[in-house]
């Protein structure tokens, strides 16, 4: 009886976290691909629409954009099962991933201060992840 009642709740939880992980991975590597592509372009992007259109032909930029579009679709699905104020703090893990990928693949200098920041972000994200994902109602049959 008790176990039976918990099944739909845990399924929804697994689904929410699966979408979250998928979203984080797609966005982190999409950003990396985009950064790599734009940094290797000869022209400056800001303010010129034509340069933007031409930049889409660069394989690094094109792949980055494709991954980011996919991330956006996964995020839409995520928004339908969880609150924006839950998703936003969890998305902060993406900032850590960006620093990590920037250091490993783009050889950026990441100071001790930045790794301290990483610990703060993990602490905050863990705190937030222990609260319920939807508070505005209408979508859960539980309880």
């Amino acid at each position: 009886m008790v176990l039976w009642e918990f099944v739909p709740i845990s399924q929804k939880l697994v689904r929410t976290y699966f979408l979250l992980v998928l979203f984080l991975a797609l966005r982190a590597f999409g950003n990396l691909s985009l950064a790599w592509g734009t940094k290797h372009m000869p022209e400056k992007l800001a303010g010129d629409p034509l340069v933007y259109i031409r930049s889409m032909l660069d394989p690094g930029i094109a792949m980055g954009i494709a991954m980011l579009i996919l991330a956006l679709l996964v995020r839409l699905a995520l928004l339908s099962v969880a609150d924006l104020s839950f998703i936003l703090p969890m998305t902060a893990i993406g900032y850590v991933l960006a620093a990590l990928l920037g250091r490993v693949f783009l050889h950026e200098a990441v100071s001790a201060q930045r790794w301290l920041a990483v610990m703060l972000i993990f602490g905050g994200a863990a705190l937030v992840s222990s609260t319920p994902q939807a508070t505005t109602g209408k979508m859960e049959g539980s309880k």
Partner: protein
Amino acid sequence: MTWVLVTVMVVATVLSDLLQSFEMKRAGEQSVGVRGVGRLLRMIAARRYLLLSIVCLAFSFFAFMALVQSAPLSFAVPVSASSFILETVAAKVLLKEQIGGRRAAGCLLVLCGVALLGK
């Protein structure tokens, strides 16, 4: 120029997120199976607020592209988190989401970390 790009990116992101969340909550639960993606795309085309949110997202994205070209990835991504507190407050006020003490504390901790990371 860097901070102009950051401002455009942040304001456009906040608008886009609010519009998206508002519209998707009205739509109910969505899946991302093969059928789910098709249904999501059809829904995007049919809903005005979602279309508007995607226009905002495009502006934010082009600003981010220009930013990431000149600034390091480990700066460009964390600096986009300056939209964070503003969005959480807006989620409470406009979308009527409940922000508990634990969640608010978590938010603040994450924000401190992000601010330090962006330095």
